[in-house]
């Protein structure tokens, strides 16, 4: 007959084993990926594991896969998009080094996706050393998405960085170019003009909301 102590050993051991197995499963696969079908999940997991092994953030990949699932994309398309994002994140990580934040990597990957060359991103990183790359890279990506030629967009953003501009100055550059484009000026010309002319406004306090770049998204309390 087993003693009470033996029964305790057995119960605790079985419980620990069960919990360990469950925790191991969770760690290996994010529960949110359950929204994907088995084939998609398998393909996405391979990319995620690869980036995790390289020390890169995996949350952007998970979000990309979930975006595809919510939009009803096919398995091939989701896996392809996740692979492409993983490749871009890896490239930017190699350019910026291990000190780059997840937000900077995501912004850099968006710029790469828009066609910005790795050499332009590396040059921008050197100019912005110690000042952060999130906003300049984001502005660069959005200018390209707005139709500004890649070379013109990169030159304009680099020019602001060379002047030692802060986040507000990059925001001002983008808004100025958008304004000019809406006024009918060709995108490339608008970027060149704004990059060349825009000098004095740099550093003007309160010129723009430093924490916000999308116009429709307003901090609560602002009109």
């Amino acid at each position, binding site marked *: 007959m087993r003693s009470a102590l033996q029964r305790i050993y057995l119960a605790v051991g079985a419980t620990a084993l069960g919990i360990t197995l469950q925790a191991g499963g*969770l760690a290996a696969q994010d529960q949110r990926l359950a929204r994907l079908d088995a084939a998609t999940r398998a393909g996405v997991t391979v990319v995620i594991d690869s980036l995790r092994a390289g020390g890169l953030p995996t949350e952007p990949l998970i979000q990309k896969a979930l975006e595809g699932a919510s939009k009803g994309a096919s398995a091939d398309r989701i896996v392809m998009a996740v692979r492409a994002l993983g490749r871009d994140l890896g490239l930017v990580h190699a350019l910026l080094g291990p000190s780059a934040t*997840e937000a900077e990597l995501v*912004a850099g990957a968006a710029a790469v996706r828009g066609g910005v060359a790795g050499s332009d991103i590396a040059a921008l990183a050197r100019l912005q050393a110690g000042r952060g790359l999130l906003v300049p890279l984001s502005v660069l990506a959005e200018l390209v998405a707005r139709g500004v030629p890649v070379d013109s967009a990169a030159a304009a953003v680099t020019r602001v960085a060379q002047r030692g501009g802060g986040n507000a100055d990059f925001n001002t550059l983008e808004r100025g170019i958008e304004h000019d484009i809406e006024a009918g000026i060709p995108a490339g010309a608008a970027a060149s003009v704004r990059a060349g002319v825009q000098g004095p406004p740099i550093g003007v306090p309160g010129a723009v909301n430093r924490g916000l770049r999308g116009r429709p998204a307003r901090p609560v309390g602002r009109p």
Partner: protein
Amino acid sequence: MDEPELNDTLRRAVEELRRPVSLGQNFAPRVLSAARRRRSPLAGAMDWLLRPRLSPLGGFVLVGAAAAVLLLLLRANTPAIPTHPVTRIQFVLRAPAARSVTIVGDFNNWDPSATPLATAAGSGGIWSVVVPLHTGRHEYAFVVDGRAWVSDPIAPRSTDQDFGAPNSVVTIS
């Protein structure tokens, strides 16, 4: 008991002890077979686990291990607490004919049911919601009436179009 009776009792006891014990014909093969039989590692582990011990410390160690694993499990299931500053952002869409509007993005796992926008009577179809966002570049879109994905008409667009229409972008620095 007198001495003759004692001697008789001793004599019978000695005779009984000297009588050969019969072990049966199969005794020796059975003993050898049992000695050759190896115990499996699992049986050995169970023997170790169930072996009575004087100290209950082994039980405490197991309880501690189970508690540590449980904490890891809870941590895996709990959304990470943002370590970056969070900025509350108001998203607005004008959609007079819409019956419902939600926002999806990388801040709510692209879940169309997670973040509905509200509208007020007499607002002219202005829908809005406030979402806490941490530092970073966020992509999002509106979902109108549960089926139409709509970009924010006055926000920057994303560079990729992996799944059709481009998303809108907001960057929090």
